[in-house]
């Protein structure tokens, strides 16, 4: 597991190593799980209240399956740490934040200045997502 060097949570980092979905479903006491691209995040929905960390892997930054996995988990009410790992690049982190990722374990370091600009650049978003952004249609109509 790569080192988590970007974290947008106030709680203490969760130290337990994440297990695979298969291992998680076969035991009862794990609190951290890792989802590979192509695995079904919905399998975790019955157990969200006892999970503290869900890590979603991006084998290639162009593989967008993890965005749907994250959306599904947040829509289902998951509030624990949601970590993106693997081929995570600065140009994708804004959207990853929007679908609910709040920690990142990139394979290669992220340029903090480019990241800061990426977060500041867009003042408005058209859609509601897992972040706090108010969609433009709602701003228009109060």
């Amino acid at each position, binding site marked *: 597991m790569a080192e988590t060097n970007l974290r947008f949570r106030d709680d203490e980092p969760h130290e337990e190593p994440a297990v695979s979905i298969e291992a998680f479903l076969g035991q009862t006491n794990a609190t951290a799980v890792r989802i590979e691209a192509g695995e079904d995040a919905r399998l975790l929905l019955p157990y969200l209240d006892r999970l503290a960390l869900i890590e979603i892997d991006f084998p290639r930054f162009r593989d967008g399956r993890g965005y*749907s996995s994250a959306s599904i988990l947040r829509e289902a009410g998951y509030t624990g740490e949601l970590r993106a790992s693997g081929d995570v690049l600065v140009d994708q982190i804004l*959207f990853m934040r929007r679908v609910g990722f709040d920690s990142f374990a990139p394979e290669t370091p992220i340029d903090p200045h480019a990241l800061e600009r990426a977060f500041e650049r867009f003042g408005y978003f058209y*859609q509601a997502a897992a972040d706090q952004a108010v969609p433009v249609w709602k701003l228009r109509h109060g």
Partner: protein
Amino acid sequence: MYQYDKYDQSIVDARVDEFREQTARRISGALTEDQFKPLRLKNGLYLQLHAYMLRVAIPYGTMSGRQMRMLGHIARKYDRGYGHFTTRQNIQYNWIKLEEAPDILADLATVEMHAIQTSGESIRNLSSDQYAGAAADEVCDPRPWAELIRQATTFHPEFSYLPRKFKIAVTAAEEDRAAIRLHDIGLKLVKNDAGELGFEVYIGGGMGRTPFVAPLIRSFLPADNLFSYCAAALRVWNRWARRDNIHKQRIKILVHDLGTEEFTRQVEAEWQEILPLGTDVPRVELDRIAEYFAPPPFESELSDNVDRSDPDFAVWLDQNVAAHKAPGYAIVNISLKPIGGIPGDVSADQIELIADIAEQHSFDELRATHAQNIVLPHVRKDRLYAIWQVLRDAGLAEPNLDLISDIIACPGLDYCSLANARSIPVAQKIATRFADLGRQRELGELKLKISGCINACGHHHAGHIGILGVDRKGTENYQLLLGGSGAEDASLGSITGPGFSEDGVVDAIEKATNVYMRERAEGERFLDTYRRIGMAPFKEAIYG
């Protein structure tokens, strides 16, 4: 037509800033080409054979005179004085420098235009009926919904790294002028028995190397739930599409692999998960958007009479002018298919001239069509003759709409790095062979479409006559297809047999049209005759 408010403008401006910074990081080497490629593609910037190509979005094909004039400015300042209208109602420029691309996007943003999501694995620019708001046969103007979807799909965080590109079309008329069943999602506005608006939803159509006509997935989707349903389909596809073979990652393959019934079940189940989240844009926002598409202030009491005494004008009138829903008005099609020209190409001077006409005579509105022509949607009939004279003098009055020389062609091997064969010279030779207008009109509606490779940007599968350029042992070879249609009677063409040389395919087409002339029954188009008598007589004439 739609106008940006501060939110829309802010988002487009931010995108320009973002792309300027990304381009600078690429030029400095901070971004590798592999990392930069999807970013530039999401801004419409391709690397082609000779230079970068920039594809500019014309959402659902609608634009103002001011926007059109900007397209001419870009052609002149950053390209070689011309642009090329595409089969997705966009325009592309073929001679772009990477370092100037951010400046072009900044210029576009000053007239509320952009190149967002015009390529790459994203939700592309929406297409629609070029007669929207003017057609007599529509239940209502589909463009408010198109604009709603444009906004909802712009920078959608979940759907920005999709398995492949994703194309949506929206229409509201009985006649399908947007080829909706050859899209990833095709939407047709209808009214149910209670008089409520909703959509017929078709999913899984497309061309490319594995063409499909989209099956009907839902016969009535309440209009207010348009986006949540699209999102459900997108999510099912994003999660479960293959990711191991770029040629098998489109939604049509998933629909085919799962079967229509199972795919529909999964989309409906996903929709039930998404629906309670309340992500659909409320009716009040649709109403806000719809105000921009209110009908222009048509004058009443206008005459429907047109003086047909000039025979050349009368031919153009019959061929290129369509019925308008308002009395005294007409829809004018400007053909970008002069005989021997490059289909869809237009010079900066012509662009500016068309912009002037639109401002003076069409309530400042223009449409780009998927057949690579331009439409003036709202023209007073008593001005048609004067407009025709101006168009004629600019080489823009070819009276060949929907005739054999109104050819759709991709840029082909003259520009495109994916192409196997040239498309443009074939189109030019066919148009020249059939240049005689009397003969073209005798042949009637005949949609001829040429692609320079299997990716089918020239819609060859949907041509009454289709041509596919392939590479056969290092030489260009052209396969001939018959019987396709992108209209409401959508169908895929069938290959006649072995391919031809460039001149050989022109001869083969002529033989096919001779069969039609010999066999046609009263009132039949080429396509109708083909469907009635089948491939055999054509094959015999072509190869016998």
